[in-house]
């Protein structure tokens, strides 16, 4: 007992392991939590104590969120950050969520306080959310469930066992179907993929519908990194602001991608760089980071040749931003803007069309954007109605993610799972942007 009290006292000072779940508008804010020493964002519920959901989530994510919550070990709690007014039904599923409306500092102190209360006993651990599902009992004849019909004579714990399927090397072994769900740690938030595994190779996959499209029709917050691009659809926006937002977005992507490849410390360095983009130390900092990335061989052995678009695939990459330019397509909406051309904007392309080329493309674009921002001064963009977002051509009604999703099955089939994750990470699919673009189109159509 004394030992237990001592341990809880010691544990109270540890960084709180949190499981971040990003909803609309809060993706970047959650990424920033990685810099905080008081919190430690983790990937899976089994490692977490506090579920930090942020922003608003579509209704259909209620069950996955509840599963995430139930997968956390006791003592656990839920904290919801800036839920907005559409997270009500999801919030009500939890017994005692803590709602925080405010800045990151307030969130951090709330999480620390919640954990302290959990451990001191003032707050009971959150009860499981999902009711007991009517799971089929173990069927069978013998004392261990054996016998009966079917491969093992039953349905152990209500879940079947995998069935066989022929494979290209002639063996008939089990294939495992799996829906890799909306909050898989290395996927963009909201991406669902129905995949079939044979061993660790993806035999086929199917991305499911973008869930952010059918969000209820109130004014939803746009995350700060995207806001300037959506404004540029309607009015001229200072180019410096656009380019700084682009550089910041690429660096946030870089932080995620580096973590996916086993370099979380470098990812935190990229996040720290996003705070200093306006100073003079920005470009040398980015160059140092690029050098560290080259040294880490992530562009050599982790991504070279991975997720390469073949010639047929390249033709469908129109409007896909850095992905298209990495495949050699000279595709950039900024070329049609006279102000950009006057600033000396030059298109950067790579050849290779694989993940390494996409990394290089984005790194080069960060440096280019910083240079453009410095030269631009107070000039504004000219063209409205379409804008080159960090992911590609954005108009009211169409965004790069909706162009990239149909390409996934052709790209991922036959890849080993690690390569598949590296490919998806390198594509930078942003379902939130796509959902907002479609909502904008329907709002405009509704208004006219």
């Amino acid at each position, binding site marked *: 007992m004394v030992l237990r009290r001592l341990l809880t006292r010691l544990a109270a000072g540890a960084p709180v392991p949190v499981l971040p779940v990003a909803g609309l508008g809060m993706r970047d804010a959650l990424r920033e939590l990685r810099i905080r020493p008081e919190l430690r964002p983790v990937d899976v519920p089994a490692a977490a104590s506090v579920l930090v959901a942020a922003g608003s989530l579509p209704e259909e994510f209620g069950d996955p969120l509840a*599963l995430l919550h139930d997968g956390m070990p006791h003592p656990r709690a839920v904290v919801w950050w800036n839920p907005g007014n559409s997270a009500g039904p999801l919030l009500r599923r939890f017994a005692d969520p803590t709602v925080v409306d405010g800045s990151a500092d307030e969130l951090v102190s709330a999480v620390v306080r919640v954990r302290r209360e959990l451990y001191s006993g003032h707050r009971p651990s959150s009860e499981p959310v*999902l009711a007991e599902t009517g799971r089929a009992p173990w069927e069978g004849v013998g004392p261990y469930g054996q016998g009966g019909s079917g491969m093992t004579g039953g349905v152990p714990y209500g879940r079947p066992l995998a069935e066989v399927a022929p*494979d290209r090397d002639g063996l008939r072994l089990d294939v495992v179907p799996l829906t890799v769900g909306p909050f898989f740690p290395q996927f963009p938030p909201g991406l669902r993929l129905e995949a079939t595994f044979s061993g660790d190779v993806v035999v086929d996959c199917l991305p499911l519908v973008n869930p952010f499209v059918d969000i209820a029709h109130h004014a939803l917050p746009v995350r700060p990194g995207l806001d300037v691009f959506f404004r540029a659809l309607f009015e001229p926006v200072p180019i410096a602001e656009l380019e700084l937002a682009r550089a910041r977005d690429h660096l946030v992507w870089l932080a995620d991608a580096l973590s996916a490849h086993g370099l979380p410390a470098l990812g935190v360095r990229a996040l720290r760089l996003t705070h200093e983009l306006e100073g003079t130390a920005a470009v040398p900092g980015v160059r140092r980071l690029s050098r560290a990335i080259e040294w880490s061989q992530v562009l050599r052995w982790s991504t070279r040749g991975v997720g390469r678009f073949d010639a047929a695939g390249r033709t469908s990459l129109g409007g896909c931003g850095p992905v298209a330019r990495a495949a050699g397509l000279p595709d950039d909406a900024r070329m049609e803007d006279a102000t950009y051309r006057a600033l000396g904007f030059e298109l950067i392309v790579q050849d290779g069309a694989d993940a390494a080329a996409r990394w290089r493309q984005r790194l080069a674009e960060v440096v280019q954007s910083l240079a453009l921002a410095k030269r631009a001064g107070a000039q504004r963009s000219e063209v409205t109605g379409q804008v080159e977002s960090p992911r590609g051509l954005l108009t009211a009604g169409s965004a790069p993610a909706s162009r990239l999703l149909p390409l996934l099955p052709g790209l991922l089939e036959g890849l080993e799972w690690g390569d598949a994750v590296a490919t998806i990470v390198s594509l930078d699919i942003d379902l939130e942007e796509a959902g907002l673009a479609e909502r904008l189109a329907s709002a405009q159509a509704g208004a006219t």
Partner: protein
Amino acid sequence: MLLGPLGVALAVFIAALMAVLLVERAGEPAAHGAPSPTERVPFAGVLPPQVHAWSRYHARYYVMALVFLVFDMEMVYMYPWAVVFLREGGIAMVEMAMFIAILLLGVLYAWRERSLEWS
């Protein structure tokens, strides 16, 4: 108790095993009762898995495993060779070089036949 070195090594192994097992048993607070069924769902990309993970997994590197067996047998021969090498002189080196060369031909064949890759 006076054990030989192998005995002490074995004792260290077993003692470490027991110690960790004890720590695992000791660290199981039963304060929260048995987990509910939804708390036991394996993590499979957030949504519950459709089938159990235990399956006839297609480990595609089975050809490489066969090549490994061959080289493992060769390693067994290299252990005593390394000990008597200096004593036996150049003859030992030539003999082992011939042995290794024949095995390396096998690896070269496996490499060219792309049996070391599988995707």
